[in-house]
């Protein structure tokens, strides 16, 4: 597909959790907890508040269609700030420092006086009903010529456990939000840019790693389409596919629009109650429903069932809108008879709303308030189909398609956080902020300075073991040994069932220091780590596995081994080196460097043969 031809424009919003000691506005640790460890819970309702213009934000209003009672789980690692029962503490200085470092990496300019705002979010994921966020820097550049518009420091939302239940351990963890300008014109460019930004973020060494710690939101539009925000893409590799699927969705919606216009289609103003038609229905949902409402979509036949993304039909879009009112979904005549609904019932339904063959009928079943709310949402979305692709916030579904969440929020959702003082970033403070060495640059340096292979260097800088490697090298451990230990040895031991996670960083460093000091051979590292994983102390492991051998003793040992096997040596000449190495290594039990030992043995052999 020629994406330039269709006018694809995309931008990225990347949210990355920071690895700080404390949360953004309280002293709680930034630790995720298993849900079953919660030690308290409470219930709240949230309601949209009126903005300064006397209006309610359109995204917030949509959430209010279905008032829900939210349940929150608290832990011994959360406090009254997460409960929205205590004012926030001042903005976390460590988090601001990291945000400034990242700003420096992108060549941005910090805001002179940073103000914390409240962004209205009433889907339950914030106990307060808003997310605290502050604009920290603007005006960055990307290597491909695109721009980083802004960096914001935000508090992470609570994790949804299920439906209307949220876990408070994640609420308040600091995160940076990096927003690019709409400067990406192909799906591949989106994915590459996200990868680059991720690399810059990890270069600080102060961001969280693992599933869910980085999330990409996408803004996508095509010519004649609309800006659509797709939230929560967690896998980098899916980004390009998400873009491609959104492009297809917008193209299909435009095609449906043109078809509706040429068919002179229309949507009825008012729903018609058809509860009675389904009293004996084979569909349990329809039979049990207090109220069933129907609306005729004139000229829509075949279009409601038309696929617009893999696994998604235009009917899915109508259904998403209806679900905002708390109903489970909709039925429509493009997919009926099915689900227990008979041909006769479909005919009766068509008759009841005077629908012809060219028309589609959508029905919803629920109590009267929900059903009315839901059918009105269907009417609203069906009408939008004549005009345009609606501007929406959507959430990614497995595989890369997306479902409607709410309208794009307006400017009415942001107001000052009056409980937090502004922070001034003085020129002196900004001058002291250093950009971290980028991981790509660091990999090059490792090749240059440590003579590591490019592949090893690349693997190292993207490894979570990088800090351990750096500490080992700083302590004088040969880089190749440090790299092999953290990248291969530990992984292999783990694969072989050794409880390597029980070995702490300090212990790994102590083992490597033992090798550095000649107390053990590098060949002994796996055995030493295994012994420590099994419960031995570092000293015990070194003592039992790698007894210290005096250089004089060692020479004597080598000569003894050669003399004991002198006939074998005379027979094989220097070819005896390999087999005798095994014998000598077994005697010293790995306490001596193999290369050194092999030199000694070679010399002893030569002397014996002379």
């Amino acid at each position, binding site marked *: 597909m020629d994406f330039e031809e269709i006018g694809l424009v995309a931008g990225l919003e990347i949210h990355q959790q920071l690895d700080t000691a404390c949360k953004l506005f309280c002293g709680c640790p930034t630790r995720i907890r298993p849900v079953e460890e919660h030690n308290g819970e*409470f*219930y*709240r*309702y*949230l*309601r*949209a*508040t*009126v*903005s*300064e*213009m*006397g*209006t309610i934000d359109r995204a*917030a209003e949509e959430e209010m269609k279905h008032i829900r*009672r939210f349940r929150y789980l608290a832990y011994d690692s959360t406090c*009254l700030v997460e*409960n*929205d*029962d*205590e*004012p926030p503490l001042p903005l976390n200085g460590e988090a601001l420092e990291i945000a400034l470092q990242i700003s420096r990496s992108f060549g*941005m*300019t910090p*805001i*002179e*006086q*940073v*103000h914390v*705002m*409240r*962004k*209205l979010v*009433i889907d339950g994921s914030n*106990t*307060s*009903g*808003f997310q605290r*966020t*502050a*604009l920290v820097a*603007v*005006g960055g550049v990307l290597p491909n010529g695109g721009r980083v518009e*802004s960096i*914001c420091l935000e508090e992470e939302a609570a994790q949804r456990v299920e439906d209307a239940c949220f876990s408070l351990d994640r609420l308040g963890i600091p995160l940076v939000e990096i927003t690019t300008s709409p400067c990406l014109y192909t799906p591949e460019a989106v994915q590459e840019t996200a990868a680059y930004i991720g690399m810059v973020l990890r270069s600080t060494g102060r961001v969280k790693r693992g599933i869910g710690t980085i999330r990409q939101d996408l803004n996508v539009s095509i010519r004649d389409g609309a800006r659509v925000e797709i939230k929560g893409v967690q896998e980098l590799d899916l980004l390009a596919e998400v873009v491609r699927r959104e492009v297809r969705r917008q193209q299909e919606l435009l095609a449906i629009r043109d078809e509706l216009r040429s068919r002179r289609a229309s949507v009825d103003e008012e729903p018609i109650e058809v509860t009675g038609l389904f009293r004996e229905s084979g569909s349990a949902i329809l039979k049990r429903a207090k109220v069933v409402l129907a609306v005729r979509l004139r000229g829509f036949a075949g279009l409601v069932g038309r696929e617009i993304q893999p696994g998604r039909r235009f009917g899915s879009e109508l259904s998403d809108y209806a679900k905002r009112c708390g109903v489970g979904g909709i039925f429509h005549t493009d997919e009926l008879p099915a689900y227990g609904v008979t041909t006769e019932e479909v005919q009766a339904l068509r008759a009841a709303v005077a629908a012809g063959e060219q028309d589609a009928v959508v029905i919803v079943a629920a109590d009267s308030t929900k059903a009315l709310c839901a059918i009105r949402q269907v009417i609203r979305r069906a009408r939008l189909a004549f005009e345009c692709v609606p501007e929406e916030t959507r959430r990614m579904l497995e595989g890369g398609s997306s479902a409607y969440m709410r309208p794009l929020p307006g*400017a009415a*959702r*942001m*107001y*000052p956080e*009056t409980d937090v003082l*502004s922070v*001034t970033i003085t020129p002196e403070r900004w001058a002291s902020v250093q950009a971290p060495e980028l991981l790509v640059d660091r990999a090059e340096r490792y090749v240059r300075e440590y003579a590591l292979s490019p592949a090893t260097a690349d693997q190292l800088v993207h490894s979570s073991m990088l800090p351990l490697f750096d500490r080992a090298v700083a302590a004088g451990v040969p880089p190749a040994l440090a790299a092999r230990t953290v990248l291969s040895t530990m992984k292999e031991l783990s694969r072989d069932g050794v409880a390597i996670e029980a070995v702490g960083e300090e212990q790994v460093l102590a083992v490597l220091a033992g090798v550095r000091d000649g107390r053990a051979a590098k060949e002994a590292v796996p055995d030493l780590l295994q012994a420590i994983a099994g419960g031995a102390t570092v000293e015990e492991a070194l003592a039992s596995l790698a007894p210290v051998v005096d250089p004089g003793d060692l020479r004597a040992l080598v000569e003894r081994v050669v003399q004991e096997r002198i006939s074998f040596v005379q027979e094989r000449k220097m070819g005896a080196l390999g087999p005798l190495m095994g014998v000598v290594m077994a005697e010293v039990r790995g306490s001596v460097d193999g290369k050194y030992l092999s030199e000694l043995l070679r010399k002893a052999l030569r002397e014996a043969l002379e």
Partner: protein
Amino acid sequence: MGLIPGDRVACTVGTTELSGTYITDRDGMHVVKLDSGYNIGVDPRRVILLERGRPAEQPDMDVVQDPSLPELAIISTGGTIASRIDYRTGAVTSQFTAADILRAIPGLAEIARFRTHVLATILSENMTPALWQEMARAVHDVIAEGVAGVIVTHGTDTMSYSAAALAFMLQSPVPVVFVGSQRSADRPSSDNVMNGICAAAAAVSELGEVTVVMHGTPSDDRCAIHRATRVRKLHTSRRDAFRSVESAPIGYVDYPSRTVSLADEAVRRGTRPLSLDDRLEPECGLLQFYPGMDPALIDVFSGYAGLVVAGTGLGHVSTACIERLGALVDAGTTVVMTSQCLYGRVCDRVYDTGRDLLAAGVIEGATMLPEVALVKLMCVLGRTRNRHEVVRLMQADMAGEILGRTPHGL
């Protein structure tokens, strides 16, 4: 040319040009609300005026009140329960027409009709005994005019003082309900809606006394109805900060069902005739004793009509302080002893220091909370200076402040 809040401006941050609305000045910076909604502080030299702002239109909303519902009066003293944030300056302002309140708490219109009266617009730490008197008169007047109940919106810091003051000054045949909110009204999670709804439900209920109605738990599940003379704010920030001390709440309002359940002890609607005695002696003090306190501090209160001491344990102060308190009493100051334990009864007949205090003329404050004893002392001294009468009144229960029996559960 100076900027006026609301002006359209352009500003530069580094090489980035941004546009927005001028809000205010903060610490030498111009605060600009960017079009994205974010506020930033910018050096004034980098901000230029684009266009004069137009004053924001005040949205008006017609509120329809149902004439078939009972009428309640809302008397506002400046609590944040119906406050609204000025988005341009970030300041919180109290809004107080009936329409404002019904807009802030939409469910109210289903419970009653409302008339409103703004008594003050102050933070409750600025409350004064003179305002308690005005409050009592205002509440008395609307009850005399026939409302079914009164809601007093109040900052939470000193709400229990005001509620106690009204309980001593006013006998009411209808509910008088104090209510406030712990979390600001501009936030979607504010407790103002649930507290307001529950207060209105209590105000149309079968209650007939002065109460405080606030969150009963950290959840949005029910409000507790507290007797005005037994309630205390026991937490700085939690929603359920208000607790009845040494007694259970006299009722609950479930939310969102609005079901009111009253304990047997709750005074019922119509039990007492309407009467007001708003006399008050404001020259009274409250002093918390602590180990090593300089006895000379007591002299600060010389010339006062009354002094409540929050003593230790059963109601004690150091031996060195007793003599000074005796001198105060001799000079005509009424001194009442309460306990900083808050729970339990004052008894100055057990230890020597206690007996010495009684000999010095200090009155035992029984089970009264220190601040409730203070408010009561103001009322009593406003009515009489007869020593015997003062002692009798301070030790007799007037409005539930003195428990006849001390409950055995803590």
